[in-house]
């Protein structure tokens, strides 16, 4: 090959990448809730102004000064973890209510549809407990009750989703059974799949608030360690709550784990609130992105606004300028996503409890 030929090809690839990036940003992409069609020129300028302001504000600053940072040792080197307590309490289904609600659902058993359920109720079988003595459904009822007592979330969630749809409020009732850790999970990345992650955020409800744990990838060489640490934290949880995690966050996490040869299925029950938000709010909102829901349903107003679609651009600027300003915006954005996710779950649970079904 000719002198400089390789450089020329690399430049051409860069130009091609820029063009595709532009197209991608302009396209509506449901999968990651990257719906920047609403990203008006105005908002892009606003974000650019924000970025510049951040670069000035944080020039020479370090994450350690701003956050409670810890280096978590992993098999693959240290991962940076930011920890913070946010006084935002989470109100879930109460245990009793969940239990009552679930045991009253005769349709959770194979062979019982609406018609049979009505007939059974007329004959005095009102709960799964009543059905234990039933000649045909007794065995199944006993098994399901055992799963309920064991709080076998995976099994129960599978049953609920088999007979009802994933957005059915009954799914939410299952969160009331969680005794151990519940982890809210949200990740930030350089794009939709196949590209490195930037940050993995988890939040765990504790008394009076949320503990936010964020694994920040300062450079790509830290991605593997961050993945290992975050996925370890996730496996400690009894259940996971995400927003579109079924299609995006969990898939992406698994893909990145497998990229580094660390694949293990993230098989904790995942409560994906996107389905519920759609059911409850789609008539009220133009779209069901978390940013829209939090704004109009939860009344959250972000102090500064970094649209999800611009995370890659901010991250690249952080790397190129060696200035944490744009990274701070990503960290705060992710934190707010986690807080909103927790607030949204509380809101959905209370709505469901009020609903009569």
């Amino acid at each position, binding site marked *: 090959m000719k002198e400089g030929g390789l450089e020329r090809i690399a430049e051409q690839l860069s130009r091609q990448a820029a063009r*595709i990036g532009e197209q991608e940003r302009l396209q509506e992409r449901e999968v990651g809730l990257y719906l920047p069609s609403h990203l008006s020129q105005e908002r892009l300028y606003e974000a650019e102004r924000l970025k510049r302001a951040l670069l000035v504000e944080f020039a020479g600053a370090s994450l350690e000064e701003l956050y409670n940072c810890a280096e978590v040792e992993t098999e693959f080197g240290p991962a940076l973890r930011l920890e913070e307590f946010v006084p935002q309490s989470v109100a879930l289904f109460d245990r009793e209510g969940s239990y009552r609600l679930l045991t009253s659902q005769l349709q959770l058993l194979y062979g019982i549809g609406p018609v049979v359920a009505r007939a059974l109720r007329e004959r005095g079988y009102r709960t799964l407990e009543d059905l234990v003595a039933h000649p045909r459904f007794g065995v199944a009822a006993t098994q399901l009750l055992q799963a309920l007592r064991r709080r076998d979330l995976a099994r129960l969630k599978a049953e609920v989703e088999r007979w009802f749809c994933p957005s059915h409020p009954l799914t939410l009732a299952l969160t009331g059974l969680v005794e151990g850790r519940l982890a809210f999970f949200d990740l930030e990345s350089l794009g939709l799949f196949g590209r490195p992650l930037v940050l993995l955020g988890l939040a765990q409800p504790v008394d009076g608030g949320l503990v936010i744990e964020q694994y920040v990838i300062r450079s790509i060489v830290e991605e593997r360690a961050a993945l290992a640490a975050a996925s370890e934290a996730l496996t400690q949880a009894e259940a996971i709550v995400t927003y579109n995690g079924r299609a995006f966050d969990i898939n992406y996490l698994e893909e990145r784990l497998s990229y580094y040869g660390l694949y293990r299925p993230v098989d904790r029950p995942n409560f994906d609130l996107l389905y519920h938000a759609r059911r409850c709010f789609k008539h009220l909102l133009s779209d069901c992105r978390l940013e829209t829901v939090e704004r109009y349903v939860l009344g959250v107003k972000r102090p500064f606004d970094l649209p999800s679609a611009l995370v890659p*651009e901010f991250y690249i600027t952080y790397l190129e300028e060696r200035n944490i300003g744009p990274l701070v915006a990503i960290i705060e954005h992710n934190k707010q996503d986690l807080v909103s996710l927790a607030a949204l779950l509380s809101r959905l649970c209370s709505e469901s409890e009020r609903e009569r079904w």
Partner: protein
Amino acid sequence: MVMVDPRSFISLLEGQDWYSGQIVAVRELPAKEAEYAAEARLLEAPLPEPLERYLAARGVRLYSHQVEALERIRSGENVVITTPTASGKTLAFNLPIFERLYKDKKATALYLYPLKALTNDQLRAIRELEEETGLDLEAAVYDGDTPQHLRPKIRERSRIVLTNPYALHEYLPWHYKWQRFFQNLRFVVIDEGHRYRGVFGSNVAMLIRRLRRILNYYGSDPQFILSSATIANPEEFAFKLTGKHFKVISRDGSAHGPKYLIFWNPLKYPARSAHRQTSDLLALHVESGLQTLCFTISRRLAELVARWAKEAAPERKLASYRAGYLPEERREIEQGLKERELDGVATTNALELGVDIGQLDAVIISGYPGTVISTWQQAGRAGRGHEPALVTLVGFENPLDQYFMNHPEEFFSRPHEHAIIDLENEHILMGHLLCAAAELPLRRSELDLFGAKEEDLEPLEQEFLQKTSLGWIYRGTVRPVDLVNLDSISERTVRVICDGELLETMDYNRALEEAHPGAVLLHQGETYLVKELDLERDEALAVKEELDYYTDALKVSKVGLLTERESREVGGFELGLGEMRVTERVIGYRIRRYERTLGLKELQLPEVEFETTGLWLALPSSLREEVERAGRGWPGGLHGAEHALIAMAPFYALCDRWDIGGVSTPFDPDLEGPGIFIYDGFPGGIGITEKLYELLPEWVEATYRLVRDCSCEEGCPSCIYSPKCGNQNQPLDKEAAVMILEAIREALTVKAGA
């Protein structure tokens, strides 16, 4: 059904009032008896009972080549099978694959087809085999059309998956979801292998290396089985495509009746167009009771020929066929052919591929399909058992077609074309290296597989790759699979949009030629008119329109020599191969209906510049004197020789005439004298001129004979005219071209003889 005697059919043809000596040659290929493997070595070991039962129920006795394939595959070899159409290739590899999958309950197999349309057809065949043998392998197609809800099940359970390279390219990054399938992968079948050539093939060769790397990661190293039309270089080709060594199985054991090839030159009867004569032929065939398939060069012609033939033979059942029809419509025609309810079908080359339509009595090939390979593929549709078969090749008014009309013996005596794959195109290589690095960290030890060196990655570290202790990690912000288009050289591409839908993407350079405003674009046999080419957004807007004309871009080129890879001197000529910088500009286009020019239009388009591989011929000034002494034009001779050389190139290196370009000049500053340059029309080169350089003596010889034997006086579209010449075919001097070609030929022969 009484078979018509071919000889009497030919007499019938000669008795038509529209016959005027168009039959320029008839060649009879003798019948052949089936060859079976000698009883003793029929099969080393019997097949599992369900497969034996299947063969017995169908009364199948394996041909010698099928047995050979089976035994070689059994013993773990990679094989490339190049026996003709309808020789039972598919069964030859399906049997050992099914055997293995039957014995090893976890084993899986991946089948790759060059086009989506083929997978469904092949799936039916495999499902049939599953049903009849009672083996449940849950074979499934997995591509862009696979419904979302079926995908997890296929990934988790299917043991045979059929797909195409485009889909594989897209899904390879998701390898972890395919862990079970990949871990147990024992076979990769690449059907219609000869289609993986040129730019597409070179991209697929890289894709297959990516696949092999992923498979290696999951601990599997499957056998590769290639099925291909006959090509000149099956071993080399298969090796380049996959990086594995192959055994070639080419000796056909199947039986067939005698085959008659008729060369029909419509130019002998200028009063009626080649297309009209095609329909006359089709009508006469079906009237005589010959079930006939007629291949045409476009969908519109398929429809016209069918319609005209129907008018001439109203009581016969005729139809047209093309890729764009709905699956049900296509199935109906395929079924109609198979069950002999249809008497004749005019089709685009869509029926050349492995679609199951049974065998017919006769085939008409209207217009040389561009390659010997395709011609034999199409001809292979004729021939039912031991019955005689008729194949008629209707030659158009262009150099390759007329070369065959004037030298029919050439068609039979020459080997098939070389299928070309270039593993050294850095544009293609770099794009795929990015894809690989995004699939798994790319380790230094893995670079060899791609033929890459560490330096190749350095320029990519700026933006796309990060060197870490694990290897190179992809860190770009776009999916690298989006940076690579398997149909083009990874560079600037233009999207052709019709009704808001993406029709195709093409290289920027190619778009200037084929998607300029006013261009008629052929896509799967349909015609589209390009309304606008927006080079800001790299988009061409086209509308679907029924058009009966074509356009050819007129291009002017300049060439500057960069480096010389090798050169030699023979008889005063210097022949060289090296890298060159090419500057091309499309200056306008010609509007053409069939072979007639209707008009010329000017265009204002930017110049393109790229570096590529090319060859040159520097000519001695003594030749110039000789030509001028004879009173002929020197520049016109060079120009004519260049056009003719380009026109004959596809005969040697499997490519389209437009995949290469050329320049001729009475004085080139690099050569310090007169010269002819011929180069690959793609950035980085794609191996075509390299192959031509290797085959120079044969190529020049054939070109010389093409021009010498053309019956025209002063040059015509059948010899030295080029429809894309930006200089309006000026100047051209046929006799001078013959003199020049003859001189080069002599120089090369002397060399060979010495």
